[in-house]
């Protein structure tokens, strides 16, 4: 099974986000970029499938994403078999408002996947700058594949022959993930508010948008990332971009005001703690006396 994991660089939200003077784009000059956290979850889920039955995992990034090499090498260090950097024939610009739209990115990835088909595309359910919607279902629509998003677990639906009594082989296979044409399928868990899930069987090829992997993403030590860099396993591929269509007309970007929001407490930690305990005590939510 060939699993392609598209990954994306997004601004580190721990930092303050500045806008350009004209309010048309985010100011990327001093921004730090990190791997989209849901893509990290998607990669982990793909690697779990590889651990279980030897799937081949290919991490794919876009050359226009800041620091994408680092994230692709990290994917290799974690166990991805290949890392590919897509270079758009016409540069897209960095991700997000004022740069490449989600539709632009999906069109490029669709062109790559048409030329290099995958059995399974697993990517993050969303990214923090997905203004025009999310990648998984857009990509699936462009490729005419089934898709499921907000997934918290992907497992092969085929029943392992070793686990099945001979007499049960036929019905087990039927129930366990071979469709009428004998195609493979996966079982996924789609999560709804409050933790309720739908367990769905999806025929391959398919696109899955991962919310969280079955386990926390594995850690790649810096030494192994350096090894991956030195081994140079990152390949570049020029891809003709398809026209994306339905571009959004962004009137302006601005930062939300906190007007009407919190009353800010100032002073030392001791003083602020005193105010907080006072607020709680006034509502009878802390026992004991105010210091």
């Amino acid at each position: 099974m060939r699993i392609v994991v598209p990954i994306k660089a997004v601004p580190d939200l721990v930092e303050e986000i500045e806008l350009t003077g004209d309010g048309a784009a985010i100011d990327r000059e001093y921004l730090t970029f990190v791997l989209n956290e849901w893509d990290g979850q998607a990669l982990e889920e793909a690697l779990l499938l590889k651990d279980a039955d030897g799937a081949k995992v290919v991490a794919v990034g876009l050359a226009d994403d800041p620091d994408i090499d680092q994230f692709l090498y990290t994917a290799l260090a974690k166990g991805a078999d290949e890392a590919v950097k897509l270079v758009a024939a016409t540069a897209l610009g960095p991700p997000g408002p004022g740069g490449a739209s989600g539709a632009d990115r999906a069109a490029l990835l669709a062109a790559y996947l048409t030329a290099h088909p995958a059995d399974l595309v697993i990517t993050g359910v969303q990214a923090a700058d997905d203004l025009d919607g999310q990648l998984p279902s857009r990509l699936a629509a462009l490729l005419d594949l089934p898709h499921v998003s907000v997934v918290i677990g992907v497992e092969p639906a085929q029943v392992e022959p070793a686990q099945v009594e001979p007499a049960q082989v036929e019905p087990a296979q039927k129930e366990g993930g071979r469709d009428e044409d004998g195609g493979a399928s996966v079982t996924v868990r789609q999560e709804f508010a409050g933790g309720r899930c739908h367990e769905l069987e999806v025929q391959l090829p398919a696109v899955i948008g991962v919310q969280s992997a079955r386990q926390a993403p594995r850690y790649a030590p810096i030494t192994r990332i350096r090894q991956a860099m030195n081994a140079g396993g990152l390949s570049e591929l020029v891809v003709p971009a398809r026209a994306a269509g339905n571009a959004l007309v962004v009137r302006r970007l601005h930062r939300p005001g906190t007007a009407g929001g919190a009353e800010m407490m100032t002073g030392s930690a001791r003083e602020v703690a005193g105010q907080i305990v006072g607020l709680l005590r006034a509502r009878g939510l802390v026992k004991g006396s105010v210091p």
Partner: protein
Amino acid sequence: MSTNVMVLAEHTDGKISDGTYELIGQARELAGALGGATEVALLGPADLAGQLGSADIVVCVEHPALEQYVPEAYERALLEVLAQRSPRLLLLSNATVGLDLGAALSVHWDAPLVAYVSALEVDGGVVVATAQILGGKVLAEVELPGERAIVTLLGGAFSSAPGAATGPGAAAPEVVHVGPPASLATLRTSLRRVVPAAGGDVDISAADVLVSVGRGIESQENLETVLELAEALGVPLSASRPVVDAGWLAKSRQVGQSGLKVKPRAYLAFGISGAPEHLEGMRRSELIIACNTDPGAPIFAVAHYGTTLDLFDLVPELVDMVRD
């Protein structure tokens, strides 16, 4: 060109979701401004139309594959509805269903899509959507000038009351039936079973006070700091999604769109930036006190009191005082 505004109804166990009413309330406002009607696409059990009294038109598609939400089945049925009804706008929840269907419908229905929308208005005949992106740190105003568009709306940003209410003597909505598309017979996705939410060791939605922690806690080891405060107060520890996804706390402790909605008497947020999905789960708390070193963190927009002190300086002081 229609000026109607359509909502996709979500339902579970024979009950229309609260989020659907938020969408209908918003649709009614927009349809009023555009001079159109409010339509609700009801896929599956048509008898639920009785719960959609605040719509003008309920468009039903009945088929066994639509009894429960299955992305491919819903997508095909909804595309049939869109082809027949051609609404000006389609509103979806920015939760599982909207995240799942929105972009695919944008491609197949050939309509622009705006996600994470927290405000919608008609300005000089043009629909303008305001989206909260980058964890709510940036607002994007997007114009939707064409004949059709899709908008996914953040939960909790709008009241569900206008969409749920029907005035006395209000006319029942017109019910229109659309035949299921033949493509529902060749689905590549099928529902195997519904898995109910697993109960946790503690019900955070029943707590009077919650000590809640986010990405700012940085590591699992650091949880000890806030855990001490929760213990000193005798209340549960809850968290935003990144802490749960990292595997540091159980899913049952998660507050937000994909976790639980809570409304304690006091919600103490430490190192939580306040992404829209988190705010959806806690903004109705009676008292919100937020601690985050970033003065621009969106959590401060919904908090009653805030501080930009480092949580690692503040929390030990709080523990001392509560224990005294």
